[in-house]
C-alpha cells in the first residue's frame, strides 16, 4: 500500500490530492482539496497569471493541511509525491513545483514531475478503474483541446490532434462575453443552450473540410462567426435570441469535438474513449459523445465534473500509476516546464 500526494498549480486552481495505491494496482481517492482563484479573475475576463500565482502561494499550505485533515493522514504517511511540472502558466507552476520539492526533501520521499494533461486522463482511473490499452482521450479545457492516444498512462501517450488556435474553453469564455454572460463562460452558456434551439443558426465547424487536418481543432473562426452574427442583429435593431445563439454555438463545438474523436477512435481501432478536462463537464458534449460512441460501439468514460476540472487528485492518480509502473523519480532540481509536451508523461 502506497500513499501518493498530488499537487496541482498549473492555472488558477491550487489542488492537493491524496490517493492510496493498493497492492493489486487499485486506486482509492482519500482527499481532493482545491482552492480556486477564479473569482479574482472574473472581472478581467480571463486568468491573470500574476493573480493566479499570488493565490497559489497563499493557498498552498492551507490546502495541504485541509487535504490531510480530510484523509485522516499525517504528512509522514506519504510514500511519494507527484506535482504538475507542465504544461501551464510558468509562475503558477513554479509555486507547486517548489512546494513539492520542499515536501519531498523534508519527508524523504521520491518526487515525480508529472504532466498535467496525462493527469486529466488519470483522473478517470480514480472513478472507473484501470484503462484498457490503447484508449483514446479527448481533453477539453480552458487551456487545452487535444486528442491523445494512450497506450500506457505512465509511459506512452501520443498526441493525435490539438487545437491550432483557441482552446474550446477559451471559445466559451469569448462567446459568453459577446452574449453578456459572466466568466467563466462554460456554465452560463450550457444553461442558456438547454433552453435554445441547437439548429437555429448554422455556425461553422472549423477544420472539417476535405483538405483540413483531420484530427486538429480550430475554434477561433467559430467565435468570430458568433460575434458577427450577434453584431448584425444588433445593427439591425433586432433582439438577439441568446438561448438559440448559445445552443447553436454549443452544438458546433460539441459536433466537431465528438465527430473528430469518434473518427480517430475508428481510424486507429480504439475501443475506449475518455473525455476529460473542465469542458467535459458540459452537458451537450457529454450527451453527443455518448450518442456517437454508442453508435460506433465505443465505450465512453467521463469522470464526474469534480474530477474533470483541475485538481490535485488527478496528479496523485498519475503519480500512483508512475509508482506502479516503476518509473524513475525526478531529481530535486526539477523545474517547471510551461510547454511540456504530452508525450513526456513524467520528467
Amino acid at each position, binding site marked *: 500500500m502506497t500513499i501518493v500526494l498530488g499537487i496541482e498549480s498549473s492555472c488558477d486552481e491550487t489542488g492537493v490530492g491524496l490517493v492510496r495505491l493498493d497492492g493489486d494496482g487499485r486506486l482509492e481517492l482519500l482527499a481532493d482539496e482545491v482552492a480556486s482563484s477564479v473569482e479574482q479573475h472574473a472581472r478581467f*475576463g480571463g486568468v491573470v497569471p500574476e493573480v493566479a500565482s499570488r493565490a497559489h502561494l497563499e493557498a498552498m499550505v492551507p490546502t495541504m493541511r485541509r487535504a490531510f485533515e480530510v484523509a485522516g493522514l499525517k504528512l509522514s504517511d506519504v510514500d511519494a509525491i507527484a506535482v504538475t511540472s507542465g504544461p501551464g502558466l510558468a509562475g503558477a507552476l513554479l509555486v507547486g513545483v517548489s512546494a513539492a520539492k520542499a515536501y519531498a*526533501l*523534508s519527508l524523504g520521499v521520491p518526487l515525480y514531475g508529472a504532466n498535467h494533461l496525462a493527469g486529466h486522463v488519470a483522473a478517470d482511473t480514480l472513478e472507473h478503474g484501470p484503462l484498457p490499452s490503447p484508449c483514446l482521450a479527448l481533453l477539453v479545457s480552458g487551456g487545452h483541446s487535444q486528442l491523445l492516444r494512450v497506450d500506457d498512462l505512465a509511459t506512452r501517450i501520443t498526441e493525435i490532434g490539438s487545437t491550432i488556435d483557441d482552446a474550446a474553453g477559451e471559445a466559451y469564455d469569448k462567446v459568453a462575453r459577446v452574449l453578456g454572460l459572466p466568466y467563466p463562460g462554460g456554465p452560463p452558456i450550457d444553461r442558456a443552450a438547454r433552453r435554445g434551439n441547437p439548429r437555429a443558426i448554422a455556425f461553422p465547424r472549423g477544420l472539417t473540410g476535405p483538405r483540413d487536418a483531420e484530427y486538429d481543432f480550430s475554434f477561433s473562426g467559430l467565435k468570430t462567426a458568433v460575434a458577427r452574427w450577434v453584431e448584425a442583429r444588433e445593427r439591425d435593431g433586432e433582439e438577439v435570441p441568446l438561448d438559440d445563439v448559445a445552443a447553436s454555438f454549443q452544438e458546433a463545438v460539441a459536433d466537431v469535438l465528438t465527430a473528430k474523436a469518434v473518427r480517430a477512435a475508428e481510424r486507429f481501432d480504439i475501443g475506449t474513449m475518455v473525455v476529460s478536462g473542465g469542458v467535459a463537464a458540459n452537458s451537450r458534449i457529454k450527451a453527443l459523445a455518448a450518442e456517437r460512441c454508442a453508435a460506433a460501439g465505443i465505450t465512453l468514460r467521463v469522470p464526474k465534473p469534480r474530477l474533470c476540472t483541475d485538481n490535485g487528485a488527478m496528479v496523485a492518480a498519475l503519480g500512483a500509476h508512475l509508482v506502479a509502473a516503476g518509473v524513475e523519480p525526478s531529481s530535486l532540481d526539477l523545474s517547471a516546464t510551461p510547454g511540456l509536451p504530452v508525450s513526456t508523461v513524467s520528467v
Partner: protein
Amino acid sequence: MLVLAVDTSTPAVTAGVLDLPADGPPTLLAERVTVDAKAHGELLTPHVRDALAAAGKALAEVDAVVCGTGPGPFTGLRAGMVTAAALGHALDRPVHPVCSLDAIAAEAPGDPLLVVTDARRREVYWAAYGPGGARTAGPDVVAPAELAGRLAELGVTRVAGARIFDFGLPVVGPEHPTPVGLVTAAAAVLRAGAEPGDLTPLYLRRPDAVEPGARKRVSRA
C-alpha cells in the same frame, strides 16, 4: 539553535545553515548560493539539501526557518517563500519572515544606511536604516532618480545592496541578503521563541492586469 535561512528576493538563490547561540552573532555552518535570476525554482531545494549535508546536519535537527520576504521580483520571490512555508509545515517548525532589505542592512551596521536592490523596469526596491540599524523608511519601490532626490531628507551616508546605483555614496555590506544577515535580522525573535509573523511577500506592486473595456466589434460598422 539550528536555523535554516533561505532568500530568493534577488538574483541570488540562497540557502544557509547556522547556529544561533544564546548570545552573540550567528555562526554560519554552511551555505549554498548561486547567482542566477532564472534558477530560483530549480536550485533552492538542492541548495538546502547540500548546505545541510555540508554542515553535517539533518533537516529534522533544524529548530527554525528564516525566510526573506522581499521585496523582490515576484516569481523568484515566491519560489523561496513557498519552499520555506512547505519546509516549516513538513518539519513542524516556525518560519520567521524577514524583510530581505533588513537582512542586507544587518550586515552593514554603523552610520545611516540606504539599501537598494534591483526591482527591474528601471526601478529599485529600497529602505533606509538609522545608526542603530532600525529601519527608518521603506521598503518601497521607486525610480532611482526619485530616490536620489530624497537622500538628504533620509540622511543616509552609505549604500548597500545591488551594485547598480551608488547615488555617489560609499558602497558597503553585501550585494544580496546572506544567511548570516537573515538570521541576524531575526535573532531577537528567534531567541524570544516568539510566534512568527505572517509569511507575506512584500510585492509592493499590483499585478499587471487591466479590466477589459467595451468589447471590440469584429465586423466593420
